[in-house]
């Protein structure tokens, strides 16, 4: 086979496990998993950029483009097949990132962050004004079909859940493979020293551009899955608060492992549920405190707890 590492095996093994859990867990948990996988992919996209030292405060742009592309394909072209919708969402995101990448690849740090934010807010402004796309209300997306099969009721819910789990975890496994590849290694090096990279014989700009396009495609996929899960798209998908949430998840979960943002998203969703229940008017404060505590006590995110535990277990074994 393809020389799978532990994370890839875990992710691939996670597909049948998650699918089975879909039949066992309460419906609200399954819904959260489904939604979390969509947004988790966008957090993953933010994370892979962070590993190259690029913080995108506008990743909602591609989350929204993916969702709207799929939604518009359904609304205006009558496309309902989920496979075609996923491909459309990813391709449109990829294309937009290819264009925008020529501008963004020249900037780093706060300039990259602000420029990515600016682009996402341009789209937000546009979508909010476009009545044909429902302005600020957005529009609904019909249930997808599967190669001509149009399930209904609970079967439709399960089918969509399965159709979310498979591409999301496969995508995460592929991203893990990418981070282990020479191109992924170059990404790590990018964060550290661009001059050296250029003097080794490779283009830092090109590496940023490629990373940006990969992140956009993954976010586009996340956007389609999320939109199909909710059956709705609206401009909030590209609002700065949504993008900020993806950055929040990446910091909360840490960038140490590809699985971290997927867990982080789910944890955030659960925390949010309880925070809203505990304090309906000031739940954001609870999230803020959690964020603060994470930065102070776990600067490398929640995943560092697992790494610490692993390291201490190895030490014990050596003794």
């Amino acid at each position, binding site marked *: 086979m393809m020389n799978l590492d532990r994370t890839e095996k875990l992710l691939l093994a996670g597909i049948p496990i998650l699918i089975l859990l879909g039949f066992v867990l309460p419906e609200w948990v399954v819904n959260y998993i489904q939604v979390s996988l969509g947004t988790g992919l966008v957090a993953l996209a933010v994370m892979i950029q962070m590993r190259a030292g690029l913080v995108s405060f506008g990743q909602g742009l591609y989350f929204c483009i993916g969702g709207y592309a799929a939604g518009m394909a359904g609304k205006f072209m009558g496309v309902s097949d989920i496979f075609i919708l996923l491909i459309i969402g990813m391709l449109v995101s990829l294309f937009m990132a290819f264009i925008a990448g020529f501008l963004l690849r020249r900037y780093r740090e706060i300039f990259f962050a602000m420029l990515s934010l600016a682009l996402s807010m341009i789209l937000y402004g546009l979508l909010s004004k476009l009545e044909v796309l429902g302005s600020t209300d957005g529009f609904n997306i019909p249930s997808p079909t599967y190669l001509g099969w149009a399930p209904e009721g609970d079967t439709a819910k399960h089918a969509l859940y399965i159709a979310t789990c498979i591409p999301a975890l496969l995508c995460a496994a592929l991203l893990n493979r990418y981070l*282990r*590849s*020479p*191109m992924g290694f170059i990404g790590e090096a990018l964060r*550290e020293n661009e*001059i050296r990279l250029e003097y080794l014989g490779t283009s830092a700009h090109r590496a940023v551009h490629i990373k940006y396009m990969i992140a956009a495609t993954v976010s586009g996929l996340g956007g389609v899955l999320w939109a199909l899960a909710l059956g709705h798209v609206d401009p909030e998908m590209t609002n700065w608060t949504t993008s900020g949430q993806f950055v929040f998840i990446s910091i909360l979960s840490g960038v140490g492992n590809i699985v971290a943002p997927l867990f982080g998203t789910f944890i955030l969703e659960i925390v949010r549920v309880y925070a809203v229940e505990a304090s309906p008017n000031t739940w954001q404060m609870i999230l803020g405190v959690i964020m603060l505590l994470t930065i102070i006590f776990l600067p490398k995110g929640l995943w560092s707890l697992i790494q610490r535990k692993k390291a201490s277990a190895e030490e014990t074994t050596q003794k």
Partner: protein
Amino acid sequence: MNTILETVDLKRTFGAVVAASNINIKIGAGEVLGVIGSNGAGKTTFVNMVTGYLEPSSGQILFHGESITGKKTRDITRLGICRSFQIPQLFMELTVIDNIIIALTVAREVKPSMLKPTINKEIFDEAMDILRRFQIDQYAESEVGVLAQGIRKLIDIAMATVGDPELLFLDEPTSGVSADEKMQIMDVLISALKSTKTAVLFIEHDMEIIEKFAPRVIAFYEGTVLADGDAADVLENEKVREFVIGKEFHRQAETEQQGGIA
């Protein structure tokens, strides 16, 4: 001499300041050259121009007779001209072995793969061989940021050599290193490079190192080449002694030769 690099009337200005002018230098295959000159003499500007970091204001740079003037750094590296830096340019938060593996990966793959795993036994062994050649294999798993300057210098140079360059520029390989370590570092790197056919040009302020390791010396002064030739001739050159080395160095050397006079 089989010339691999030739510069013709190379000039670089920054506004009204002339950083380098009228630079005509030929470098032969496998040659070892030392470059001397006080701060601001144009040595690093020369290296920056040849390696593509700075574009010359005028003049030509020929590599194997083909013009490489104005080419990008990475394209020049791919042609076989590499460099190390006065301040080592490393991936500080990564380990030494990861630094070398990244260098090897980039040097080998013009279009790096996005799915094939980077680390395998072959590339790991190759990286370890490079570290052994530079006698820094004991630091393989250490994070670069915690290592001493001398070790960082050697890593920087090791990274510059991974693509088997034809011409290697070393910008002050011993600067920032204690006097005791200087000779040691030069011994290590010259012996590491001996097995290759790489031509080496190193910028150095320490005349003892120049005398010991550079058969040919080029002296820079105020952006121009003051002297170019055999080390002994250049170091004896009256102008070089006056403007570059300072007469003190020779007085001291003569004193040592005469057995020391109080």
